[in-house]
């Protein structure tokens, strides 16, 4: 066991871990952030996706100790505060981009990384970017529409901000 400092959602957690502990387990068991889900623990499903330095990564395939010094973002930090939702979260609710919710954390973070990259993705681009995240419930169509809606919501927010400034 050794001390590891993890910066998650802007807060530094000091946790004591074995070297073998995955980032996913450290987040869930030691940082109290259980929104990161484990669906396979071998890299296929994407449920464990978190943002590491703003890139989507599978937290089941990263050792926690490797993430020291990185900036980690989890589902719990996606919205600016607990009382609001990020546009992508709002969009997934509105457009029914989820059923059981188990893939949702990973799905939202991957979607966010896509929208950071491409503010106006086509359905084909969404399918390609998101395809490392499996969903067993929705059949994907409503997720694609959710991501498109999120793009629209973000643009509306930006327009509103520009108007104000």
């Amino acid at each position, binding site marked *: 066991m050794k001390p590891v400092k993890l910066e998650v959602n802007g807060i530094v957690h000091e946790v004591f871990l074995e*070297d073998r502990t995955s980032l996913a387990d450290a987040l869930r068991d030691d940082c109290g952030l259980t929104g990161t889900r484990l669906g396979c*623990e*071998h*890299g296929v499903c994407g449920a464990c996706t978190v943002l590491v330095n703003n*890139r989507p*990564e*599978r937290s089941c395939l990263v*050792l926690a100790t490797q993430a020291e010094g990185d900036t980690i973002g989890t589902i719990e930090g996606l919205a600016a505060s607990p009382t609001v939702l990020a546009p992508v979260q709002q969009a997934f609710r509105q457009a029914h981009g989820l059923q059981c919710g188990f893939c949702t954390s990973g799905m939202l973070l991957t979607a966010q*990384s896509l929208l950071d990259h491409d503010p106006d993705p086509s359905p084909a681009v969404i399918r390609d970017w998101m395809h490392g995240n499996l969903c067993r419930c929705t059949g994907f169509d409503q997720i694609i529409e959710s991501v498109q809606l999120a793009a629209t919501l973000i643009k509306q927010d930006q327009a509103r901000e520009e108007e104000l400034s």
Partner: protein
Amino acid sequence: MKLPPLSYQRPTDLREASLMLGSESMPAVLAGGQSIIPALRFGERSESSLVDISRLAELQGITHADGFLRIGAGVPMWEVCGSPEVATSAPLLIRVLGSVGAVGIRSRATLGGSLAWADSTSQLPSTLIVLNAQVETTERILDAADLQIGQHQTVLRRGELIVSIQIPEVELTGSGFHLIRKTHITWPVVGAVAVREPSGQLRLVVFGAAPTPILAVGADRAKLLSQLSSRILPFDDERARAGYRGQVAPILAGRALDEAIGSNT
């Protein structure tokens, strides 16, 4: 399914990395971790210590040098895909990378790791071979085609690290890439990648049809395909049987060649 107990070390430079890798405990190299971590979890690999090379400065960077595009072995595929240098010098590599795993895997997985992992069904080593790339290691420079000698087997010695991949900056007059897969998040079953050089010379590499990539070079499409057919040595795995691989490999090879001959990228 948790990892078995293991120790983790992160060297600060290549020299320290080599020392660590030479140690008694016979550590494994950890680059992007997208293959080695699952393998350790499944007990398919049994090393109990890891040396993390993912932050070594010597393995980073994408640069032009002496007519080569040099890509650090530790550069995540994500960065390769987003690199303007690669987009101009080796667009085929970006196209192929787009078919590897998914963004959330490419964000960490490295070209060096892919070469060293040496999976017979991977599209990446084959692409580097078709591009006539050279592999710079801590000990030597190899043709990409000489690296892999079997399924998950390379000529790399213990402690020898891949440092960079060097792709000659030649203007190609065509390229083609075709593969078959079960789903888009599992590895390819079988596939082919081909390029046409300005001289009219064709280079074809087929993967998933033998324990190592099959390279064929020549100007004549038919001759290339017949060269290929004698070297197909297909195998069974959980995604397909040997018979299927053997049957489809020449088809995909033909399509990759046709695309390379017909296209001008």
